[in-house]
C-alpha cells in the first residue's frame, strides 16, 4: 500500500536529495533514485542545451497514473517524480524518480518502470539545441 507520492513539474532546479529524503521510510530497506541529466551528445550529435515544455495539467495526471500502475505491480511504499521545464544547460537535472520499497529489487524495478513509462506517455517535449541545428527529440525520422 503506497503511503505517499509527490509529483512536481517546475521551472526551477530539481533537488534529487529532497526526493530521496521524501521517500525515506523506516519500513523500507532502501531507496532507488534515478536522476536524468542533460548529456552533451545524442549519438554523434553534439548537444548544447535542451529546452523542455509540457502540457502540464495532463502531464500531472499521466504521472499520477504511472505511479499508481507502478504501485499495483510493485509493493512500493513512497514515490516522488519531479520534472523540470525550460532551458537546461549541460549536466542539469531534468527528471528525478525516487522510489522506496521494503526490498531493493522491487524499488529498482519500480523506478525503471516509472521512468520508462514517463518517457513513453508523459506529454513532455524536449528540443535539442545543437550546432548542427535545433530539433525536437523524438520527431527525428
Amino acid at each position: 500500500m503506497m503511503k505517499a507520492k509527490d509529483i512536481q513539474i517546475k521551472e526551477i532546479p530539481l533537488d534529487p536529495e529532497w526526493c530521496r529524503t521524501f521517500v525515506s521510510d523506516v519500513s523500507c530497506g532502501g531507496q532507488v533514485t534515478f536522476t536524468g541529466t542533460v548529456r552533451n551528445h545524442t549519438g554523434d550529435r553534439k548537444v548544447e542545451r535542451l529546452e523542455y515544455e509540457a502540457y502540464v495539467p495532463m502531464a500531472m495526471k499521466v504521472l499520477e497514473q504511472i505511479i499508481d500502475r507502478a504501485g499495483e505491480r510493485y509493493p512500493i511504499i513512497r514515490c516522488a517524480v519531479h520534472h523540470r521545464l525550460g532551458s537546461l544547460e549541460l549536466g542539469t537535472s531534468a527528471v528525478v524518480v525516487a522510489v522506496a520499497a521494503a526490498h531493493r529489487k522491487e524499488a529498482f524495478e519500480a523506478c525503471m518502470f516509472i521512468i520508462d513509462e514517463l518517457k513513453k506517455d508523459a506529454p513532455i517535449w524536449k528540443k535539442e539545441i545543437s550546432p548542427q541545428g535545433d530539433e525536437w527529440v523524438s520527431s527525428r525520422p
Partner: protein
Amino acid sequence: MKLFITCFGPAREITGQRQLELDVPGVTTAGALRSYLLNTWPDFRSLDVVRVAVNQAYAEDDLTINEGDELAIIPPVSGG
C-alpha cells in the same frame, strides 16, 4: 461546433500556432480530428505518431468530441 485545440512541441511548429480554432463539419470524434490534422498539415505524417488528447487524457479514435472539450495535439513525447 467550434473546437479549440492546443498544439505542443513539434505540433506547434507544424501548424505555426499554439492554439487552433476549428469549425469543421464532420469532425465529431478524436479520429476525425486526427485525420483532419494529417490532411491539412501533411508534415504531421513525418512524425511517428500523432495522438489527440481530450480533456487531458489520450483519446481513442472513436471518442466523441463535444463543444467545450479541452483538445490537444500530442506529437511524439520526449520527456525525461
